[in-house]
C-alpha cells in the first residue's frame, strides 16, 4: 500500500513495553507502513517459544502498577501483545527479525523462538531496513 517505513528496535521484555511496541507496530501496519521489528536483548528473550504465555515482567520504575495493570488487562479482555503482532502480520507488512549478536550471546537458535520471528540479522541489515523511515527504540 505504501513505501513508508517504520522500524522498531525492541530492547525491552516487560509486558508494558511489549504492549506499547506491539500496538505501534499494529497501528503502523494498519496504516500501510512497512514495519520492521528488530528484537535485541530482553526484547528477544520475550520471543523465546512460549515465554509470552507466562510473561508477567513489568517495568521497575512502575513496579507498583504491575499487578493492577495485569489485572485490568485481563478483566477488560485486552488482547495479548503476541496476538496483536500476529494480527499486524495478517493485515499488513510486518517483519520481525532477531538480533544475531543476542542469539549468539545467549546460545539461542531459530527453533527456540516463536514462529513469528522470520530471520536472524545483524545491526547492519537493520540499519539498512530502517533507512529513510521512522525508527524508534523501545
Amino acid at each position: 500500500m505504501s513505501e513508508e517505513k517504520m522500524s522498531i528496535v525492541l530492547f525491552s521484555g516487560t509486558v508494558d513495553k511489549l504492549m506499547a511496541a506491539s500496538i505501534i507496530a499494529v497501528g503502523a501496519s494498519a496504516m500501510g507502513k512497512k514495519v520492521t521489528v528488530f528484537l535485541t536483548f530482553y526484547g528477544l528473550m520475550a520471543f523465546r517459544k512460549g515465554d509470552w504465555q507466562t510473561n508477567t515482567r513489568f517495568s521497575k520504575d512502575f513496579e507498583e502498577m504491575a499487578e493492577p495493570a495485569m489485572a485490568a488487562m485481563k478483566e477488560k479482555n485486552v488482547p495479548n501483545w503476541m496476538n496483536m503482532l500476529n494480527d499486524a502480520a495478517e493485515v499488513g507488512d510486518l517483519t520481525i527479525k532477531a538480533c544475531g549478536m543476542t542469539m549468539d550471546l545467549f546460545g539461542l537458535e531459530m527453533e527456540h523462538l516463536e514462529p513469528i520471528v522470520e530471520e536472524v540479522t545483524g545491526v547492519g541489515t537493520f540499519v539498512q531496513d530502517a533507512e529513510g523511515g521512522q525508527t524508534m527504540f523501545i
Partner: protein
Amino acid sequence: MENVEITKESDARGSFCPGPLMELIRMVRDAEVGDVLAVISSDAGSQKDLPAWVAKAKHELLGQEDFEGAVRFIIKKSH
C-alpha cells in the same frame, strides 16, 4: 443513514484500540467492492483512527452516528 443498505455490521464495543480498526480492516478485506460496512465502537482512539484509515486506504466514509453512547461508522468499500 436510514436510506443506506448495510451489507455487513460488526459490534466492536468493548474492544480496545486497535481492535475496532483491525475489525474494520478484516471486514473491508473480506467484502466485495461497493459493499457498505458498519462498525460500532466505544473506544476513544477509534473515533479518529477509523476515519483516518478509511481516508488513507481510499475507501469512503459514508457517515458516523451516535449509537447507544458509542459510535457507528458506515464505510463503503471503494476498490
